């Protein structure tokens, strides 16, 4: 009973006019430093790629996503790769990333909690966020055409940003 009361009290408090930092996360990068989504907000569109080393389509997509990062980073695109290998395969990820020449930020989602938060059900999943952190589009699976559509959307968002 007390538990239910506490639960409801918290809910009511939350509807009391407070507001929100968007979907948040605070994950470790390849250098053991914590990075949160809020560190990247306001710069430009944010492309989040959920991937794993064992996932064949993810590996196929990584060089293409890296190319997007190289092409549009200067204009404000932020690319974040969220690795889903899990804590048990963590030591294998950095050699993979470095040898593949991946330049964008890689973060470890050790317990897949961020993946769940974004509602991603399968790998790879790419999520395009507005500069404020709002989800614009979610794509599951890899396809060259799908990635082209994401690129078109990114270009639109960058042009919009430039014209503001």
């Amino acid at each position, binding site marked *: 009973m007390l538990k239910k009361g506490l639960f409801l009290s918290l809910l009511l408090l939350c509807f009391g006019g407070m507001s929100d930092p968007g979907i948040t996360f605070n994950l470790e990068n390849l*250098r053991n430093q914590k990075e949160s989504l809020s560190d990247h907000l306001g710069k430009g569109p944010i492309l989040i790629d959920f991937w794993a080393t064992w996932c064949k389509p993810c590996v196929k997509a990584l060089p293409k996503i890296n190319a997007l990062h190289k092409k549009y980073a200067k204009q404000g695109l932020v690319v974040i790769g969220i690795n889903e290998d899990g804590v048990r395969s963590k030591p294998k990820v950095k050699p993979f990333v470095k040898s593949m*020449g991946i330049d964008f930020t890689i973060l470890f989602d*050790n317990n897949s909690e961020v993946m769940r938060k974004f509602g991603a059900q399968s790998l790879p999943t790419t999520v395009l966020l507005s500069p404020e952190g709002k989800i614009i589009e979610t794509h599951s699976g890899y396809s060259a055409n799908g990635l082209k559509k994401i690129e078109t959307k990114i270009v639109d968002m960058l042009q919009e940003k430039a014209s503001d």
Partner: protein
Amino acid sequence: MNSKIIIALIIAPLFSVLPTSSFAQLRLNTLSNFRIGELPNSNAAAATTYYSDALLEYRHQFIDFGLRVEGYVSPNMKSLIQPRDNKFQKITQRFAQINWAWGNARIGNLYGLFGRGMIFRAFELPGFIYESSIAQKQHRVIRDVDGAKLAVNWRRFSITTLGGRIVNPLIAPDDKLRNFGNVNGGQFEANLGFGAAVGTAYLQHKTETVESKLSTYFAKWSADALLDRMSLNDFTFDIYSEYATDKGYAKLAALTPKDPHAFYFSATTTWKKTGASFEYKDYKDFNFEINDPPPVIRENQEKLLNRATHVLDAVSEKGAQLELFYSPTWFTRFTANFSRAIDERAVTGRPKFAENYLAFEYTGDKISSKFFVDSGKDELFSEIKRFTTGFLPDYSLMNDATIGLDIQWQYIRKVGNRGAFDYRIYNTYAAFKFQNWRALSLSISMERSNDPDLTDDLQVNKKEYFFNTSIGWRPMPQVNLLLFAGKRRGGTACDHGYCIELLEFNGMEFRVETQW
């Protein structure tokens, strides 16, 4: 309950300092699984079943809350332990979470991880539906805690504290045995700068019969910043080490006078296109069913290898693993993995595990392929020799479609203690796959085995065949339909380091997944 009130009192003042913006999201994920057929190695002759899972999550301003309902019914299937009414419908998760820029608080069902899972890991295995051969009820594989959690990240420090009731993920939601006692604990981590961090965690786990008082200490260092300063930008180097002990009941029950302990160490280095990682483990009396120490065994995704994954015995296992990685171009990769382990608990000697894995992958725009060879042994499971090889090519057609083959072959020699048996087992797997990511997928597969566990033929002459086909269709981005027909082999399946036993099935299955 007291811990939850304390957490609520702590977070209440934080409402006044939360940042402002405004958007709300409502999300609904559903899964429905209809099945008509039989479970050949179970006590049920026929199985017409329906399983459904719905997860509703709502995000408004700075709060998430969610509700998960799972249901299962099998009108004509009676299990041994529940012969009359083999069904359930239950709210299996409900939670509210408050997020702010430097942390979150959650009440209800929650997940968590301390260190690298040495003393605690609560998680969900996405996509898996589990069914035990005894209870014969389908449900999600979720090991969560029903309680409260507070996580705070402040400058260089992060603190997590949690408490509540933990469940056994392999027991159906309506079964009282699912309750696996209470956990209370926390983790503190401090970033020392220069890529170094230290941390400690404590967890008390109490059931009616067992009390564990687990503590762990970990340290990690990434030398990248230092190497950059020395103009050695092509190099990276990282180490991680963790040591955990139990001062509770397990210590009293331990066979050795030493404290139950677990030690894990990893070192990773990369140089240009080459990388290497080394891991070492030494676990003694450290299997608590609420933790997941790193197994230091490669979890391969190839079908035959995944089924043969060595399952860690944290009660007594020592070992090491070395993985080498070389990617001369972005489209070619070589992976070599060498794993060794020894079990010191077994009554009959000290069974050894060994695995050598070598793979080459090519990922081009049109053609991709993977070739692997794997050899090893797992004496704990009487496997004195195992060899597996496979070739997985695929070709991209027009309009985002791909066709692919998956051909694998495996030889296992199993010899019983004092020559009780000597089996030479051959497994063959072949599949043709067509996939158009946007709309349609088709898979036709065949598996053949003379494993006496399947054929009941101790002379290993008889062969068992598994033919099946599956068709996937995504009529709209939010809906995924999957139809399976044929015979599916059971056995061990591992994902994210957690292995479960899947049951064999013969029949038709129709799965509908939606995401709104």
